């Protein structure tokens, strides 16, 4: 269709100016897009708000939803337009004019004057559509966040730290956050007394905890790993306690179980000043020397060390003893009759259960090995110990009997004074002489055949009239492996018996050393992880058996160190 579009604009002079355009198109578009025939640069208007097409009797208006037009004061979306009709489209007023000749239609486009006049001048309420408009703020909260955390988390406790003990104690007791919030984990229960006493260890701000703080409490009980004259000693004094003993950690491991603290040196011990006899040890399962035992050895009772498994080891304790006989499953003859003995009859656990109380005659042997000597007075026993005392007891006993009458079935035929008789000095001397003879006779029997010789090595000295017996002293090794810790109670699992580790039932002589070799332990105990060689065993790091701080090496007090340093400087 051919249409005339007359645009009315108020020019700069204030006079309305009309400009005519002729458009040939089937559809006349109205909208904000620049390709629209009737262009209206207003944000409220769609890119194409409406369109005009030809109709039989004039024009047809169609609005693009949701747009609507006001046609002659009525709202509508589609309308058939006739000459004289007024269409209000947003800010524009479009009037349908009489079409000139050769034109199918004509319209005028002008600004809607009503736009300027509002029907109601009350403004819309102001809508609070953003979070900031309803009171949300970042900046004050950000400032508050950084201020509060710094103040409560750092500045306040710091202010009190280093002041008097009373003031920091007050802060810790108060509801305010104190330096307790800085603790990164609980202390080991052994250090529970320090839990609320940070300054006990953290003496100086920004300085690491020093060994002196540990030694404040531990100097009297702590021992060094090696002797002060050991070549590695100097390096060891440089170590900080906290290298191994880390506090505030989870899980709390005040005792360092890591094998590396040992293998650092003990893989190649000679490179770290160890003597030629020290063998390398890296892991209980993989590389560990055979056990050594410490033996008390007669006659001078020096401690000798011997390695198990190398050659038969003989313990020289001067005791005559056989485990095999005592553990005879058929029983052993005793005053009470036949007795089947168990290990625990003699080896009774100590209080902690880790080891055993020392063996002694009175407690462990005397119930069977009675020291009675006179069948007439079976309850009368000899003292155990000094042979001289034994002799004295025998002489006393028989003197009393020979002087005071001897009226029972065991009475010997001669030399006995009848009961109640008064003796001359000569008769008395004769009776005592007989008693002495008798005592010697009994003593020889007891020392050499019946009682003492069962267990002891006895030698006879003196004259035949005045015999003297010597009993070789007995000392039993109480701790065969002093360099390792072993807990018998921990091994009482029910599966292991004494025999599992100690071959006592077949030991026929006292000189046998019944300590197990390392291979016995390895049946159950693995190395650090316990999973070596494709087997799962009990994880056994070094610290399972060994302690780092050797009980025999005293702590090098700072004074001692100073002396060593001075001596080194002089050389």
């Amino acid at each position, binding site marked *: 269709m051919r249409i005339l579009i007359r645009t009315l604009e108020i020019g700069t002079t204030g006079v309305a100016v009309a400009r005519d355009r002729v458009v040939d198109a089937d559809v006349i578009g109205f909208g904000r897009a620049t390709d629209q025939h009737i262009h209206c640069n207003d*944000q*409220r208007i769609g890119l194409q708000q409406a369109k005009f097409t030809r109709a039989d009797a004039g024009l047809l208006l169609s609005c693009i939803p949701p747009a609507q037009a006001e046609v002659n*004061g009525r709202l509508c979306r589609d309308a058939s337009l006739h000459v004289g009709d007024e269409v209000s489209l947003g800010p524009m007023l479009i009037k349908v004019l009489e079409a000139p000749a050769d034109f199918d239609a004509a319209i005028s486009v002008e600004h809607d004057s009503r736009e300027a006049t509002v029907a109601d001048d009350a403004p819309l*309420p102001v809508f*609070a559509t953003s979070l900031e408009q309803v009171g949300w703020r970042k900046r004050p909260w*950000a400032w508050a966040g950084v201020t509060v955390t710094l103040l409560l*988390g*750092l500045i306040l406790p710091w202010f009190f730290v280093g002041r008097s003990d009373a003031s920091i104690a007050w802060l810790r007791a108060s509801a305010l956050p104190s330096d307790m919030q*800085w603790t990164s984990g609980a202390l080991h229960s052994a250090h529970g007394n320090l839990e609320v006493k940070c300054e006990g260890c953290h003496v100086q701000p920004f300085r690491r905890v020093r060994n002196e703080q540990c030694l404040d409490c531990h100097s009297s009980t702590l021992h060094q790993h090696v002797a002060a004259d050991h070549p590695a000693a100097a390096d060891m004094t440089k170590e900080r306690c906290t290298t191994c003993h880390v506090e505030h950690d989870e899980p709390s491991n005040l005792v360092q179980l890591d094998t590396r603290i040992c293998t650092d040196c003990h893989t190649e011990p000679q490179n770290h000043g160890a003597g030629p006899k020290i063998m390398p040890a890296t892991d209980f399962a993989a590389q560990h020397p055979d056990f050594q035992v410490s033996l008390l050895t007669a006659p001078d009772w020096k401690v000798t060390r011997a390695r198990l498994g190398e050659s038969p080891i003989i313990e020289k304790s001067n005791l005559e003893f056989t485990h095999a006989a005592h553990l005879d499953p058929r029983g052993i003859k005793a005053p009470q009759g036949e007795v089947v003995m168990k290990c625990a009859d003699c080896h009774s656990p100590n209080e902690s259960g880790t080891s055993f109380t020392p063996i002694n005659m009175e407690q462990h042997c005397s119930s069977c090995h009675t020291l009675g000597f006179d069948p007439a007075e079976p309850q009368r026993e000899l003292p155990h110990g000094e042979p001289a005392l034994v002799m004295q007891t025998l002489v006393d006993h028989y003197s009393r009997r020979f002087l005071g009458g001897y009226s029972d079935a065991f009475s010997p035929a001669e030399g006995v004074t009848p009961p109640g008789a008064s003796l001359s000095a000569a008769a008395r001397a004769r009776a005592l002489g007989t008693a002495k003879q008798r005592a010697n006779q009994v003593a020889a029997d007891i020392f050499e055949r019946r009682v003492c010789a069962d267990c002891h090595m006895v030698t006879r000295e003196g004259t035949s009239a005045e015999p003297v017996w010597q009993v070789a002293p007995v000392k039993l090794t109480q701790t065969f492996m002093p360099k390792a810790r072993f807990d018998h109670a921990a091994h009482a699992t029910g599966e292991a018996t004494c025999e599992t580790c100690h071959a006592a039932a077949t030991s026929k002589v006292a000189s046998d050393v019944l300590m197990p070799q390392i291979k016995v332990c390895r049946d159950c105990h693995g190395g650090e992880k316990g999973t070596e060689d494709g087997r799962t065993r009990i994880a056994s790091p070094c610290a399972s058996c060994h302690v780092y701080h050797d009980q025999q090496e005293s702590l090098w007090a700072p004074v001692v160190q100073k002396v060593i340093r001075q001596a080194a400087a002089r050389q």
Partner: protein
Amino acid sequence: MHESMLDYAQRRYLKIAIALCALSIVAYAWHDPLSPPNGGTWLGYTLGGIGAALILWLTALGVRKRSYSSALGTLRGWTSAHVYLGLALIVVATLHTGFQFGWNLHTLCYVLMLFVIGSGIFGVIVYLRYPQAMSANRAGTKPDVLLEEINDLDQRSLRVANEMPRRFGDVLRANREGTRVGGSTRAILGGLDFSTINLPAAGGSQAVPNPEQAALLDWLGAELARSTDGELTKRIGDLLSVVATRRNQLRRLRRDAQIRGWLEIWLYVHVPVTLALIGTLIAHVVSVFLYW
């Protein structure tokens, strides 16, 4: 095609973040300190240093964002790095802790960090989802234009009401006064309509809730049903049409506010908690060496 900040530079920062995580995990697995893993071993200090540096650098995005003239890379690059390295911080910081947690300042620092990262993840999700929904809702227009349109519709309906009995103009003006968009956090984020309208009632007028212009549309519907005057009936019909359009535009306005609300809300957590984190981080670092 639009490239999301997550895809920036062939995901360069994603690769860097994955490399950082992988390196940290491998180092952690390899590292076998005498004590249980914790922040005080050499690896602990290293991871802690990287973590603290990351936190400060990630915070610097807030500064870079405001500096339009900066030559230090594009804002999109920064944001991409911020997202990926922020996520990597979870791995770095967790390994720094050695999985040792407790009721103390150090764990508070870690929790605040997780809170910041968590709110950031929320932010990324809304940034990926909502801008499209926002464009679709706006359909090429803008909130202030929508407001103008609503104003226009009101003027138009009032012009129509000028030719009608007085009560129509009164009700339309009451509707204009009682219309609400947003107004509270709940209304904004929930996209809720707490509009009211004063409707004629026996012995005066009564304020009733008018969500989605429902009360007004009902009232006009009732008037329409009662009307016997043909001209009045037509004009009521016109009003119904305008009010329905008005309702639609208000709905878009509300939806727009809702989307913008969700796009912003996380930042009101992210930014202040970040600053609280920095305060706690300083306290954490200083206190650890104060009580070394």
